[in-house]
């Protein structure tokens, strides 16, 4: 169904309403009946893919979003690659934030350099968890947001809620 993922990359595939989990270099089908996938406790790298039927190409595998989470100096750095829009991408980011909150990680840097689009659902998750995390004394800071992401955040009047940095290092150091 999908290529064997590179070592260290977990794949979460959404196919016809069922989530299939592929682990490292040994993909296996593990049908899950829940609507949102149970994420691994320690989330490092996740690729969300979806399969769609195309009349011309048959079954097409589409990468929805890559999420890479790493910890630097007690700060969670979350790098996204792909459009942050309604569906599995926003749902997974929401779960990522919930996991961080549950673990007491309230210092978060979001690298949006490779996020070409943030829709209103994505904005909703960002500002909602910004509020929740700030209540716990933390913050979500943005690193290298794409030009269009900045424009969108500004259009809906939430850009000034966030601190924005040119690179991850500066964003991480600002928490010290």
């Amino acid at each position, binding site marked *: 169904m999908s290529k064997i993922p590179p070592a260290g990359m977990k794949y979460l595939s*959404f196919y016809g309403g069922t989530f299939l989990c592929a682990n490292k270099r040994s993909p296996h089908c593990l049908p899950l009946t829940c609507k949102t996938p149970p994420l691994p406790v320690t989330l490092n790298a996740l690729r969300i893919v*979806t399969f*769609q039927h195309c009349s011309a190409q048959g079954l097409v595998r*589409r990468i*929805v979003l890559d999420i890479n989470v790493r910890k630097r100096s007690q700060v969670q750095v979350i790098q996204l690659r792909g*459009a942050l*829009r*309604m*569906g*599995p991408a926003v749902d997974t980011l929401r779960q990522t934030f919930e996991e961080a909150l549950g673990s007491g990680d309230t210092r978060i840097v979001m690298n949006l350099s490779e996020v*070409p*689009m943030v*829709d*209103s*659902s994505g*904005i*909703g*998750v960002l*500002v*909602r968890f*910004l*509020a929740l995390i700030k209540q716990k004394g933390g913050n979500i800071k943005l690193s290298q947001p794409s030009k*269009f992401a900045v424009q*969108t955040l500004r*259009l*809906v*009047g*939430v850009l000034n*809620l966030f601190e924005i940095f040119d690179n991850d290092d500066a964003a991480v150091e600002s928490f010290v």
Partner: protein
Amino acid sequence: MPAEPGDQETGALSKLLDLSIPAHPEAIAAVVDAITERLERLAVPEQKRCEVGLAVQEALANAVVHGCGNDPSKQVRCQLQSDPMGRILISVADPGPGFSPNLVPNPNSEENVYADHGRGVYLICQLMDEVHFESSGSEIKMWKY
């Protein structure tokens, strides 16, 4: 922006794409990508493509969620057209009862700033040059010049 061979002429408007999708969030991306790819082939500048793509994303999301209640047995229709002056018209229609855009809360008000929803219609109106709600709000027509 000239029409491509095979485009259907309907009066002054050229129909470039006519798509119907099941009302499921996962079906939206393919339509947005198809529209932006078509606009790229027509040499529409990137900034404009991004703005149109996001407006379409928002309109389809509203149709799927509010117009169809996330019921994949229902269909949402999306059309891309252009006029002889190169202006783009995108129409999104759903089978729902419609809504009144005047009743959508202002996302910029203080009590809504941290809301996790309610920005879609506002974004569409900011991104597109003209927006019309027809059929009691179950159809939206968006122009980009």
